[in-house]
């Protein structure tokens, strides 16, 4: 195990200076997520236009470097994506974090995939996986208009 795999520069960069850490004006979907064991919290805001495109995405929250970086990188990548593409990306990302060695999706380019793969270091730290996945599960809740707060303890 090498801590540098977990705390890659890109993660530290996004962790310290999270992008899209704000509240979207006139958002039309949102959801809250909570990791009760660590106290990580995230609130995702979406503005979806009439063509089912994400015209804006942002988040508020607090947590460790991994959870903040994950939310930051995720929100960056989701802008201008269609609803269907969001679902595919979330599934592919979660698959990669759980078991798959790489991301299969063709929606994003190699450079963007590398950014997401920087989070794969958590695979070696089972207790930290939920830090990386919290924002993603919460995004799914927001897309599904779920009223229930996402709780990482409910996921494998």
């Amino acid at each position, binding site marked *: *195990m090498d*801590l*540098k795999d*977990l*705390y890659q*520069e890109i993660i*530290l960069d996004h962790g*310290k200076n999270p992008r899209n850490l704000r509240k979207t004006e006139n958002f039309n979907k949102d959801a809250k997520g909570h990791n009760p*064991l*660590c*106290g*990580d*919290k995230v609130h995702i805001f979406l503005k979806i236009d009439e063509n089912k495109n994400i015209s804006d995405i942002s988040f508020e929250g*607090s*947590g*460790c*470097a*991994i959870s903040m970086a994950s939310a930051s990188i995720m929100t960056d990548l989701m802008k201008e994506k269609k609803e269907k593409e969001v679902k595919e990306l979330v599934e592919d990302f979660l698959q990669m974090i759980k078991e798959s060695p790489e991301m299969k999706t063709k929606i994003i380019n190699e450079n963007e995939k590398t950014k997401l793969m920087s989070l794969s270091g958590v695979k070696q*730290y089972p*207790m*930290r996986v939920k*830090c990386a996945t919290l924002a993603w599960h919460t995004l799914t809740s927001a897309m599904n208009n779920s009223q229930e707060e996402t709780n990482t303890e409910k996921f494998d």
Partner: protein
Amino acid sequence: MNINNIKKQFPIFNNKVHNNDLVYLDSANSSQKPQMVVDRIYDFYTKEFSNVGRSVHYLAVAATNLYENTRSMMQKYINAKDPNEIVFTKGATEAINLVANTFGQKFLREGDEILLTELEHHSNYVPWHYLRKLKGIKINFAEINNDGEITLESIEKSITPKTKMIAITHLSNVTGAILPIKEITSLAHSKNIPILIDGCQGAPHLKLDMQDIDCDFYAISCHKMYGPTGLGVLYAKKKWLDTLPPYQGGGGMIREVKKEGISFGDLPNKYEAGTMATAQVIAFGESIKFLNQIGIQNIEKHESELTKYGEEVLRKNNSVKLVGNPKNKGSVLSFTLDGIHAHDIATILDEDGVAIRAGHHCCQILHDKLGLSATARASLGVYNTKDDLDKLNESINKCKKIFDR
């Protein structure tokens, strides 16, 4: 007391963690186990096992004697008046649930109030919260001061004519504040209010004398006292155990069972329904022996010196902020680091074999009050040394290096 010999009694320290010596700084969460406790569990299961209090055969009688012997040892250890004031439970959590449940059932009505403090662990809040739902009681919280302490005055201010129970921690698992429990008990009794002390953090580190403190209930977690998991102790004054209804029903706690009705057994059986954690109780006798061999005064002195040393070392480290500054402090060092979240600290320290806890430590109310979502916590046990605290500080500096890249 030679501290090196004490560490040698704990087999866990023969193992490496990520190729490093283990620096265990998570004893407020759970303590490690001395060889004699581990051996006792093995010996009981391999040579002496039987259920207790039921059969008349040789093994059953021997096991029953061993089980009851731990009760007597515990009575002496905490200077309770009567061995029947010692009730074994599955943990301190169950001990507090037992009191909340039975006391609530019998004595609490809508509008009655329970007084807790902002320092309480969830296990001394959630059981009372159920009564809020069931009985319509109200829960009040005595406020901490700027040093993370609860003073006698803070308790006094929060008592109202409707306060029916005071339930407070002996020693905060976050700020380390040691509460003036004897004075608070005396105050409570002057107003005819019973008092429960959550002794999870007090019992492993401080000398206990139930008759001197005079509290009504004192909850203990055995796995924090160098004993096995799955076991707690509720100390309760006999007058309460005689008055309160049984907690759980089942075998062992009854006298006579008829289709028309049931009469309950005498103490201590009344509160020990079903087959208890027998091996754990018997092995816990060894934990008490272990504590007595060292002497609780020596443990207090050793841990208090270490805590002062740890505070000194961490205060010199400019990026560390200690959480709370109580005058009377137990061996808990909670801290935050500028710009680095507690979970990142814990992961990086772990790589060096340094085991701490990160999060809200089951004290969300306190963390909300402090405006912190999570803290890192190093907590000490009898086996720790100054060297452990130096290693903690070195690893903290490593966190900064990684994050300042």
